[in-house]
């Protein structure tokens, strides 16, 4: 469960977020600079805020610019006690390779594999699919959706097609506040921002 009633300030802009999520995948959307990433950092205790915050622990977090450490895929996985990979994992045949040489999609999958091995009850993912092709994006979306069946997953994204595909409830950041909306309403509100 995630319950937040928080206020925070970035560059003299004030943000208010009030939400409660019991379980499942929830998207976090809004224009650039709307406070999405800062909100994740508030949840992680990395940014000062006022208000109350309750989350199931442990937390898992994949940042916007995730990069594996400059070591083999195997070493990166061992750091998180990952001993076995599923047979269909794209990393299976690349365990010996330096993780920096993985493609964008494979790096994202590596980050996800690492963090999911910690079995977080609350998983925060910041724009992991931003630079990925469609198949990699869909694979990661599905992985997160499945994981959401027994945890709270927040996925920050700018991709409207993700919203259309997943039809997940969306925390929409607009004009300094955030509202948790059903997928269709969030999409319509996003369309309105274009006018």
């Amino acid at each position, binding site marked *: 469960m995630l319950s937040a009633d928080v206020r925070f300030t970035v560059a003299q802009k004030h943000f208010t977020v009030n939400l409660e999520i019991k379980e499942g995948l929830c998207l976090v959307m809004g224009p650039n600079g709307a406070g999405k990433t800062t909100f994740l950092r508030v949840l*992680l205790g990395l940014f000062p805020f006022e208000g109350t915050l309750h989350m199931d622990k442990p937390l898992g*977090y994949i*940042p916007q610019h*995730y*990069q594996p450490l400059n070591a083999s895929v195997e070493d*990166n996985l061992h750091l998180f006690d990952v001993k076995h990979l599923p047979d269909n994992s794209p990393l299976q045949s690349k365990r010996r390779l330096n993780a920096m040489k993985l493609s964008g999609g494979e790096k994202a999958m590596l*980050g996800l594999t690492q963090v999911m091995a*910690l079995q977080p009850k609350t998983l925060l993912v910041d724009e992991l699919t931003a630079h990925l092709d469609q198949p990699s994006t869909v694979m990661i979306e599905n992985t997160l959706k499945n994981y959401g069946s027994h945890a709270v997953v927040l996925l920050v994204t700018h991709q409207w097609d993700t919203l259309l595909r997943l039809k997940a409830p969306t925390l929409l950041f607009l004009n300094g506040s955030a509202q948790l909306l059903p997928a269709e309403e969030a999409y319509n509100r996003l369309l309105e921002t274009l006018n």
Partner: protein
Amino acid sequence: MDLALIGRTLGFTVLTTALACALALVVATIYASFVKSPWSHLSFWRAISSIPPVLVGLLVYLLFSRQGPLGFLRWLFTPRALVVAQFLLAMPMAISLCLQQRVNLPRDMEEFIQVNLPSRRVKAMMLHLRGSLVNIGFLTWGRILGEVGAATMSGGAIVGYTATLATEIMYRTNLGQFANAVAMGVVLLLISLVPSMVLEVTGRAQR
């Protein structure tokens, strides 16, 4: 030309330099991995890493001389004192380079480790630093390999005992034994170039 002496001095130089570098790398890796805000320590260690070698030699001399606090060890003018001096020369440089490597880790990744691996942060940092240790080792190797001041004051540059190639070149030149000095100079030049060559070859292989 005294080939036996050159060989013996070469072996001693490589051994003591390698030992000092290895010790410096171990200390630097542990220090840089434990530090929570590397940028706040970086300027200090960067400044210390340019300390004149002769001052390090003086410090070691004062520490290990009979009246010094560590005089009871009787290490002055032994290979041990020489390694201590080389270690003290190499360590600040190794630490500043390791800290620089830590600073280069993007903020996102610092937070990724801080949130996901709070109890294994040091292990993660060591893994991050490991990839750069060869480079850092070679740079510190270059810093202490041809050094004369600290080596002379701490080891005494005793021929066949604590003389390194660099101190021996100076000694032979003073004696007018230019053939020996030039031969040792060539050997010193070659072993100082080895790291660059290794880095070049491995770098090309990785590209």
